[in-house]
């Protein structure tokens, strides 16, 4: 029945259980996120919202349950693997990479850079350079869009709190699809603001 219900859902969380010793942090949580929607998870302090987020994004291994992201089971997968499947998250405490330039914070978020493997740096230098150019162009475009061009070469740690949060969102909204959506939202192609907003807000949902 779950797969039927999940037809329009990009994220489907079922009966997730997480215990820390004797503490039942999450006790059978289930929810779905429909494509293009903004979904909020609310509850009082200590309700287990953050724990649930950490289980869904792989930072904590859940005890029981199922997390299906775009049709793939990702429950108990390591966080970097879930992230590569398109899971985008932020943290309650902003995690901008302080001692790296703003532009590096942006380019880092781009997927499919072969040069992130040392082997490819040596064996596929041309592919690495080509992808790096694309990534940089995309990053600069996004920075322009969000008025951060001036600080592109500054350390991310020197930005204001608000700028840093922006940077964290933008960095994580930086895949080709999202960039394309954001461009459209910006009014160049067919405007469809809901799309870009949904992606950014989904990232901000925590």
């Amino acid at each position, binding site marked *: 029945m779950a797969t039927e219900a999940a037809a329009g859902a990009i994220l489907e969380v079922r009966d997730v259980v997480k215990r820390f010793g004797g503490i039942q942090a999450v006790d059978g949580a289930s929810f779905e996120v429909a494509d293009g929607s903004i979904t909020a998870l609310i509850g009082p302090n200590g309700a287990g919202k953050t724990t649930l987020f950490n289980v869904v*994004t*792989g*930072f904590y291994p859940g005890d029981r349950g199922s997390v299906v992201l775009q049709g793939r089971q990702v429950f108990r997968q*390591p*966080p*970097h*693997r879930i*992230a*590569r499947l398109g899971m*985008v*998250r*932020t*943290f309650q405490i902003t*995690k901008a*990479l*302080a*001692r*790296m330039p703003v532009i*590096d914070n942006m*380019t*880092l*978020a781009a*997927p499919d*850079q072969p*040069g*992130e*493997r*040392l082997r490819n*740096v040596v064996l596929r230098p041309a592919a*690495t350079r080509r992808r*790096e150019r694309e990534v940089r162009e995309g990053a600069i475009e996004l920075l322009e869009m969000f008025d951060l061009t001036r600080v592109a070469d500054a*350390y991310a*740690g*020197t930005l204001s709190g608000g700028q840093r949060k922006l940077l964290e969102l933008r*960095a*994580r909204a930086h895949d080709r699809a999202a960039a394309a959506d954001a461009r459209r939202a910006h009014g160049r192609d067919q405007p469809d603001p809901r799309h870009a907003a949904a992606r950014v807000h989904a990232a901000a949902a925590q």
Partner: protein
Amino acid sequence: MIELVAAFQPPLAVDLGALTDLNFLIGVVGVTAGIYTIFALGLQLNVGYTGIVNFGQAGFMAVGAYAMGILVVKTGLSFWVAMPLAIVIAVAFGLLVGLPSLRLRADYLAIVTIAAAEIVRVLAQNARDLTGGNQGLSCSPDFVCYDDAWRDIEDGALDWVEGLGWADPEPLFPLFVVVWVTALVVMALLYLAQRTPWGRVLRAVREDEDAARALGKNSFAYKLQSLGISAALAAIAGFYLALNVASISPKEFEPLFTFIGYGVLVLGGLANYWGVAIGSLIMWTLIGGTRQIDLPITDEQQAALRFIIVGVALILLMAFRPQGMFGKREEMVLGD
């Protein structure tokens, strides 16, 4: 009374002649600083660029040096085959230490790595059949020594420079050249690697492992690679150390070696490879130079005084340039 006055005659007699002496420049400062540069470049990759607090670098160096020595002396393998094998063994040891411990928090990782290094050293002290214990390892009973191949090259090189007109060349000159060429090549390679997307991910892991994970980077794999490369560099430094001292013995691999390596890092500045070479040169000019001080005190007092002077000099350098010679002040301030 007269003796007393005579004894106090030279208030601070540093023999400045010795500081310009070739033996001092090449032997004491040059070769040692070069070996420390290679050693500390690995530390720089770990500490400055990946955020791994590796306190076991001397242990990786010991594994590399002993593996090379044992392979040549005990199994009769060629020096040239033994070296790459020893690098592989040192890297394997680095990964073995890293696999369980790189998941720990930085301070626990420091404890595990220093413990691993001490295990290696104490093992080398006691596995006498293999390592020669405190006597050290140099030659087999039928006089196959680990540095035979190198001594041939060294003799040839010395003859050659003598032929060029350098009468009575400094014996450590060939080692000096090879060590610094290696150091510069390693420095250049690391510098280039740091500018690639791979290097960018390393720095992201240094800044925040979880953020890197949330961006789809396997932080653990990058930390493991960083430690493996560092162990390889430690092994290479170990080979040169072995060639410099003519006998591989456990006292060469005390934790102090790692700590002086950290001193070099702090002096040169974090997250800068060229700074490692400068820091190492400053460190060994200080340590070597203070040996030249000629005061009417006992050797024990002089030994203590040397390190007091080195300490004061380091404090002054840090007071006036806390980010080190090449470090970026911004990065230091922004660090948490």
